[in-house]
């Protein structure tokens, strides 16, 4: 399929019409230009044809911005105005006499109409496509300014046309009184309605602020409903199970704190402290044992860091399972490129030299895992003194 006809602004001499036609035909622009020049010189038909093509065929830039015309307002006005003059001159040449009082105003009006319609109604009536995201960083304000100036120029052309018409018919002085009266009326009306308009604008601002506020309130209400109120309802139902109630309350507290701090789990997951918090929340929810995390410093997690968090999680599970309900304390420190995590429970403890068979999880998924990632795990425990697992990666591992 061939490319649609577009004016070639880059290679064009005047408006890029000839270059565009040449590109469409797949030939060099020179022959096209020669033909156009011949048509212009012999008989003059080339000039209006060129202008017509200039006005009617969209340029490259316009095509790219999907109909949002980038042609300057002056260009359009000139083009259409010249077209109108050409048509009138042609009519005069054919013997149809049109008075000068009509000719010039008509040309101006034609230009003005072209501007107003192109800039306003025509574009508005087309569904505006979404602006290209990268091409123009902020097309909106510039676009609006261009529209305003285009419409201003169009209106100015209209007024000029009116003045020229009045001048030509000799009724300008009479019209002056009318215009003066109209201006006075306009000023009086403006003064009368100014406060009202101002108040209107202000109340619009107030209303917008109110709307934003109520949206925020609705969002907050939605969040509280989904989290806190649900949990409170659940806690009322489980009132006879204190462990369950405590676990629900702690899970909700954790969630609410994260929300208040503006931490979303998705973006926080890959950092040490939030990852440990998440693991603690999981273990707490599963084993109904409070797990407190204290973190000093924070660091991004690489593969070894992920292994550290996984090992810490396993240690928390162990502490929750064998700590006989005692709270689990997790302390993490990230500094100088190293990470250190302590997981401690106040349970019955065990003889570290004779790790029972059911503690193999500790050996495999904690000690083994840390060693595989160039880290170290140390388990300190004694009967009656609780258990502490120390995990180190990086620094002095």
């Amino acid at each position, binding site marked *: 399929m061939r490319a649609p006809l577009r004016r070639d602004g880059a290679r064009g001499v005047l408006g890029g019409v000839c270059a565009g036609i040449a590109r469409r035909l797949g030939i060099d622009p020179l022959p096209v230009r020669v033909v156009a020049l011949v048509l212009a010189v012999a008989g003059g038909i080339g000039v209006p044809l060129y202008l017509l093509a200039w006005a009617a065929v969209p340029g490259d830039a316009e095509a790219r911005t999907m109909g949002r015309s980038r042609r300057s307002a002056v260009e359009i006005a000139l083009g259409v105005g010249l077209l109108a003059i050409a048509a009138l001159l042609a009519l005069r040449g054919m013997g149809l006499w049109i008075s000068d009082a009509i000719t010039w105003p008509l040309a101006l009006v034609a230009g003005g109409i072209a501007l107003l319609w192109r800039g306003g109604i025509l574009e508005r009536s087309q569904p505006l496509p979404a602006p290209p995201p990268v091409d123009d960083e902020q097309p909106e304000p510039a676009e609006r300014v261009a529209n305003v100036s285009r419409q201003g120029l169009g209106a100015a052309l209209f007024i000029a046309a009116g003045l020229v018409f009045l001048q030509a018919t000799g009724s300008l002085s009479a019209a002056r009184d009318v215009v003066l009266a109209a201006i006075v009326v306009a000023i009086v009306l403006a003064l009368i309605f100014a406060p009202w308009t101002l108040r209107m604008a202000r109340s619009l601002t107030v209303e917008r602020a109110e709307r934003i506020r109520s949206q925020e309130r609705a969002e907050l209400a939605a969040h509280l409903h989904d989290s806190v109120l649900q949990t409170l309802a659940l806690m009322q139902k489980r009132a006879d199970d204190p462990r369950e109630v405590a676990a629900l309350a702690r899970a909700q*507290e954790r969630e609410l*704190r994260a929300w*208040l*701090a*503006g931490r979303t789990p998705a973006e926080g997951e890959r950092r040490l402290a939030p990852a440990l918090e998440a693991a603690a929340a999981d273990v707490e929810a599963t084993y109904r044992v*409070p797990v*407190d995390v*204290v*973190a*000093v*410093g924070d660091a991004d997690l690489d593969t070894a860091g992920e292994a550290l968090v996984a090992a810490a999680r396993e240690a928390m599970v162990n502490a929750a399972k064998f700590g006989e309900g005692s*709270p689990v*304390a997790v*302390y993490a*420190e990230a*500094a100088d490129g190293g990470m250190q995590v*302590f997981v*401690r429970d*106040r349970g019955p403890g065990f003889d570290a030299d004779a790790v029972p068979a059911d503690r193999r999880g500790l050996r495999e998924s904690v000690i083994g895992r840390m060693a595989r990632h160039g880290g170290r795990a140390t388990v300190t425990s004694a009967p009656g003194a609780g258990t*502490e697992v120390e995990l180190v990666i990086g620094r002095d591992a």
Partner: protein
Amino acid sequence: MSAPRVVVVDDHALFRSGVRAELEGHVDIVGDAGSVEEAVGVIAQARPDVVLLDVHLPDGSGAEVIARVAPEHPGVRFLALSVSDAAEDVIAVIRAGARGYVTKSIAVDELADAVHRVHEGDAVFSPRLAGFVLDAFAGAPPPPRVDERPDPDLEQLTAREREVLQHLARGYLYKEIAHRLGISTKTVEAHVSAVLRKLQLSNRHELSRWATTRRLVD
């Protein structure tokens, strides 16, 4: 030693009566208050040994209560107690003069123990507070300001103090720390008191500007 006389300052009546019931027998609760104004009045009248002080109050903060009470009643000691674990709030109330900070989820016997400790003039650091302090004192000390006598010792922790704080953050009790580090419990207490003093007097910008730079909520 007689039971310490305690005033509980917290805006939640439910919490106040809960603490009163829990600490019954451990300490002598001589009054309670739900706001800064009320607290100032009650403390002046009851003359307690220890004030259990919520960090946030409806008409101000716990730090405000300390600022208004401490000059006239220097014997009254304060223990901050809160669910609000934002570092800046906790540090603020400690710098105002509180002798320690514990979370409201603390077990009863630990709370009673903390009150006794504060009553005896010691500092009470929950694991959370120990973590905050380690965080605040991480990194190099700031250069001394020209307009004041430099006291570099105030601006950083000694290796031993750091060690004690780490053990506190890991959930160890003073007695256990003493045992692990091979020092006496009294020495552990001395270290913690020294840290408290540094926390209150240090010029580290981490302490004064914590709120704006970290936005840490537990």
